[in-house]
């Protein structure tokens, strides 16, 4: 057995140019697949982390029953009351898989600068949870540094009574709030709306940051603010939803089921939606579907092209070494052993090529990352750096697939020849 491996290794040196060409095809194909994998790895993780953390979706979103659809139209009826919140938070504390959670509000009204007022659509978060989310290792790893503000600092840097809020860039332009709180100047605004009981109410706020929504349609009306300020504005103790982050993402659906059951038993009717459900994260799910289809297609094609290349090379090798095969057979090597020898040769070649391909791939990834190329996918404010992130599991899995394909292709190329008679093999045929 060991002899076959040794023979195989030695035989590699017999036709260096061809092996080099074959090996290059494998190496380059593998490098290409790694680049692709690096891109998909980066994008899918970027989108996942952006959806779950930066957008405060959480792994699970908890609403009052039918609240997901109807809260925006009838907040009083479809919000989570103070009592419901107590029950929910008790259930969340008792659930071992829950890492942390956040109360959230949303709503609309008018925002004024003392001269004019214009409509706003607000998302209210907990600033300290926002801080936790922004500094989360996943966010630090996958989303570009600097967080989601084009200007200014996170709301958690300011005392609660300041009424810190962030404006979308278009809204900041409309209100003439070019300077944020830390830059001096007048960063004061007022929010006015009808309370949930029907009277008029207004609160002060201080602009501490600007952000881009990534969509032209929302960039002139969006604001981020502490959810308590929205509660104050709408004169309520209720919240619109909870976002829940779990410890093990693979447990998400089980946690959802447990929470729903537990709260039902406590008399609180809720709906819990997972982050990767289309209705909660349509952009994420749609993009990932598309990306996976695209990458599968490209991957299959590259694998096919590599396989043909290997087939080409192996066929040529076998034809050249017919007499040698005949000789091995005539001195007692069985068909299987001779086949195995060729397969072993392919193994060494493939391993070496994959190693080279991995080095090439990682080098290419580093170069592309260093080039800091910016491109503009839809919905991403200010563009995104073309960054590839190699994935070790992907490296091994795709390497194993290519190795397997190579070995199978070799076996296929060799198997027909093995069925020839020894005498024919010894006679040999050249071109």
């Amino acid at each position: 057995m060991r002899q076959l491996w040794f023979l195989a290794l030695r035989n590699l040196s017999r036709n260096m140019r061809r092996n080099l060409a074959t090996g290059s095809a494998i190496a380059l194909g593998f490098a290409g697949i790694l680049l692709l994998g690096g891109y998909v790895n980066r994008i899918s993780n970027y989108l996942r982390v952006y959806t779950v953390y930066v957008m405060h979706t959480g792994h699970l979103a908890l609403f009052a029953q039918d609240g997901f659809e109807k809260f925006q139209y009838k907040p009083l009826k479809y919000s989570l009351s103070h009592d419901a919140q107590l029950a929910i938070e008790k259930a969340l504390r008792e659930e071992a898989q829950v890492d942390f959670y956040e109360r959230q509000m949303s709503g609309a009204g008018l925002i004024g600068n003392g001269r004019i007022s214009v409509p706003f659509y607000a998302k209210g978060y907990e600033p300290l949870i926002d801080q936790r989310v922004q500094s989360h290792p996943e966010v630090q790893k996958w989303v570009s540094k600097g967080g989601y503000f084009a200007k200014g600092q996170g709301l958690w840097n300011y005392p609660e009574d300041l009424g810190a809020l962030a404006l979308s860039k278009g809204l900041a332009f409309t209100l003439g709030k070019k300077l944020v709180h830390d830059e001096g100047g007048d960063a004061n605004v007022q929010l006015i709306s009808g309370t949930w009981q029907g009277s008029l109410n207004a609160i002060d706020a201080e602009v501490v940051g600007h952000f881009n929504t990534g969509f032209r349609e929302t960039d002139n009306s969006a604001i981020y603010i502490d959810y308590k300020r929205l509660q104050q504005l709408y004169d309520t103790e209720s919240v619109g939803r909870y976002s829940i982050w779990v410890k093990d993402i693979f447990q998400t659906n089980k946690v959802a089921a447990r929470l729903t059951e537990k709260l039902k038993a406590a008399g609180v009717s809720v709906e819990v939606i997972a982050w990767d459900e289309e209705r909660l994260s349509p952009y994420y799910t749609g993009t990932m579907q598309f990306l996976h289809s695209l990458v599968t297609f490209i991957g299959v094609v590259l694998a096919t092209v590599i396989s043909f290349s290997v087939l080409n090379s192996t066929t040529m090798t076998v034809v050249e070494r017919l007499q040698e095969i005949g000789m091995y057979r005539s001195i007692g090597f069985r068909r299987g052993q001779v086949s195995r020898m060729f397969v072993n040769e392919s193994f060494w070649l493939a391993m070496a090529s994959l190693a080279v391909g991995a080095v090439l791939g990682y080098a290419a990834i580093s170069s592309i990352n260093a080039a800091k190329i910016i491109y503009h996918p839809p919905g991403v404010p200010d563009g995104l750096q073309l960054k590839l992130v190699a994935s070790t599991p992907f490296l091994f899995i795709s390497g194993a697939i290519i190795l397997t394909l190579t070995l199978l292709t070799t076996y296929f190329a060799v198997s027909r020849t093995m069925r020839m008679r020894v005498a024919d093999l010894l006679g040999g045929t050249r071109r």
Partner: protein
Amino acid sequence: MIPPRKRVMLTLAFRNVVLNWRHSLATMLAIAAGFSAVSLFDGFINEMNKEMTDRYINRGMLGHVVIEKSGWNNRTIDDPWAYTLSAPEQNFIKSFLEKNNRVSASVRFLSFMGLVSNGRISTVFAALGYDIQDGLKFRGERWEWDAVAGKPLYAFDGPIVLLGSGLARHLDCDLPEDSEIVYNSDGSLVAEERPFSCQNPNVQLSVTTEHVQVNAANLRVGGMVDIQLREYNDRFVVMPMATAQQLVDTDRVSRMSVLLKKNDDIWPFISEFKAEAKKENMDLDAIRWLDHGIAATSKGGMEILSTFRNLFLSVVAIIAAMSVANTMMKSINERIREIGTLRSIGFRREDIILMFSAEGLFIGAFSCIAGFIVTVILGLLISNAGISFKAGILSAALPVRVSLAFSTWISSIFVLCLITLGVSWLVSRKAARTVIAETLRYVA
């Protein structure tokens, strides 16, 4: 006229490839697979591009060029009328369009917001009023029927309104189930009236007019539409231009879209319009549809696909080159004696190089032909398989189809043949320089 010597080498090369096709089979398969993959991918991208273009220009009635008041992008929500087109400006534009023979059709749009109520529930709406008959010239037969429930606007006379499907649900309307909304294979709706019912068959739209007065209209709900973007379906309302202008008590419009006879007319049209507007002191702007904010999503998406394509093409091209190099090296190695023989009877080095280069070229060409056949077959299969995808934010799926990308085929054939030719030339040069006596004695 090809000199006789070269003709002989080319004939030899052709015959060598044809008679010994088995030896080059795997290489040809690799190149064919690469050609096919790149062509299919390009065909897919082209089809996506065509589809998105059609959806914006025709279905969405954006047209090839959008004419707006200069500075429209700077308008603030506080003063929505500041950058609208007045009646004299519209007359100027209309007159220009009538005289310009690049123009196929034009349509006016009026956008505004307000409150919509069914008597129990009220919520914010965003409306689009447009000239229905003009709009039909943009939409054409494919997109003519745009109502997922009820009937399209053109099927009614007089004031009527269609609601976005999300808004309709919120206003207590029962829509057909998704499975009951039937689409043609090209993604357009099957033109049939799908019944719906609303608790209140009329809705009241309340607005503040151009002159900041309250106005309201009770309009019958004629049906529901599915705007291409999910977020819009929860607020969208569409109506005839006359109804819209009457509601906001104005003769102004937000923008005009122009459909040209040819794509190539876009830039000439824009410069002609701008020159004329400047001459008449009209503060107007003409923007290519792809540069307009409405089409920003499409532009970003196509950029990503192009990046993928370029990466993919590069890798395939390199692998193809390696494969050919492999084959040619082996072939040349085995035919050293043949080279010697040919040289000894008077063929020159460059003739040998020509022969092997031509063999490489023929391998490339035959592979591309095979790849072309596979592309056509697979392309037809994929296009007719009825696959679709939603690409993230779209509410209605895009059909997956592969178009016949002639220009891609030509350029792929050119590139791949160039690669096979070039690689063969490279590897044959050394062999061609070997001394004749050595080549005749050579044992592989």
